[in-house]
């Protein structure tokens, strides 16, 4: 089992965290998110993103608004709700803690 495979579950779990970060910077629509992730280990597809975003919306972390696009139908632009910002802050804190632990236990 390669490292890549071993961490697939973890990447999946972290995707929501990354989405919170991306959406926190500015209002984005799905193609923007895909582009930002495409060069990383977290490269993903619409088939994954839409269900995840809809779940986050149901949990009140993100909301969307419609915006006209220069070509084609209008698009959904996502942004964080106050609850989403709170969630992001907590997650970042927790992530830092994990990181510290990893670093501390690492062989010098």
């Amino acid at each position, binding site marked *: 089992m390669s490292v890549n495979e071993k961490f697939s579950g973890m990447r999946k779990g972290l995707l929501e965290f990354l989405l919170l970060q991306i959406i926190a910077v500015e209002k984005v629509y799905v193609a923007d998110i895909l582009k930002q992730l495409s060069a990383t280990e977290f490269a993903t597809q619409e*088939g994954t993103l839409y269900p995840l975003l809809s779940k986050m919306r149901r949990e009140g972390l993100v909301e969307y608004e*419609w915006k006209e696009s220069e070509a084609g139908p209008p698009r959904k632009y996502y942004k964080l709700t106050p609850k989403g910002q709170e969630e992001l802050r907590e997650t970042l804190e927790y992530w830092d803690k994990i990181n510290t632990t990893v670093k501390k236990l690492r062989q010098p």
Partner: protein
Amino acid sequence: MNKVITINLGGIAYQLEEGGYDALRVYLESAAMRLRQNPDRDEILLDIERAIAERFRALLGSQKTVVETKEVAAVVAEMGPIEAESGEGATPGAAEPKPPPGASTYGAGGGERPPGQGGTPRRLYRIYEGAMISGVCNGLAAYLNIDPTLVRLAFALLTMLWGTGVLVYLVMAMVVPAARSPEEKSAASGAPWTAQEFIRRAKEGYYETMKGFPDRAARREWKRRFKREMRGWRMSFDREMRANADHVRTNWHNYWTEQAPFHPGLGFALPVLSLLQGAAAVLLICAVVSLLNTSRVFGLALPAKIPEWLAALLLFMAYGVLTSPLKAARRACYWGLGRPHWAWSSLFLLDAVIWLAVVAVLLCLAVHFFPELSEAVHGLPALAHQAATDIHAWWKGR
């Protein structure tokens, strides 16, 4: 030459090759299947449809109006499999409903219809849309997924065998139910998404999108655009329904507009071609009649080993072969004229009138000059009477 099917995605009409349509359908059906536990199922499906629509739009241009099968497969592959939610469940895999066996391909394997799972099971119905008499041939063609003309031809050939075709046709017209409800119509052709379903989905998408608009100007613009799309889409669908119940649209259009640029002379070639084809049709009728009456084709005796029915069949085939270039040329003229214009429309009408007139005049002449043909024509009422009495007797003796 591939079939082209019009579909509606997020309120906008697209034309796909049949294989691509199948791939897309399999993908969306499996998506719906995987999301069936999801409270936001419809919204996610709409999102997916919109995303696909946007990719299709990017592929098309003024010259290219049809999305090819391989392009659909590429778009579907780019979209990726729909992930059922795994956030709540303890084990990600367990919460995922198993996709149906046919749907697991996600259309990546091209446009193959999954066996038995390709949506609505087909049933034999009579289909009135695009029917000639009572829709028997049309329904049979949709059931077998072939061209209705072939079925009609088969019935015509069967009829020459002591009227078997007529008998079978009558029985089927009485026995086979007509497709009336939308469900029956979709079952008749095996296509799960009927016109009504398209319209319902389009409207749903439209209102859903409308809800999120901030200002009136944007809303008005969207409304205007949507109406235009719907109009164009409905018109194209109606046209297709008229042309063929299986709403088959061939790529002839593209093919011929590419091959033959607009040329007014084509319009005038039409009547001439029609004349030729009409003459050939009359020749065929005369030949068959003379064959049946005298066992000779225009005085030429048949080789001893060929029975009459085979000779008639050969005549029909010869007619088909001889007139196929004529037909192709006429079709080329039609498409070569480009977009329909009232002047050309009236020319087509003229063409049809000329065609009928030529056939009528030649038939009159033939009846006049060939005694055996005139005999056959005069014998028709008696023959019909005989058939009627036979049927009557059979009905009484039942």
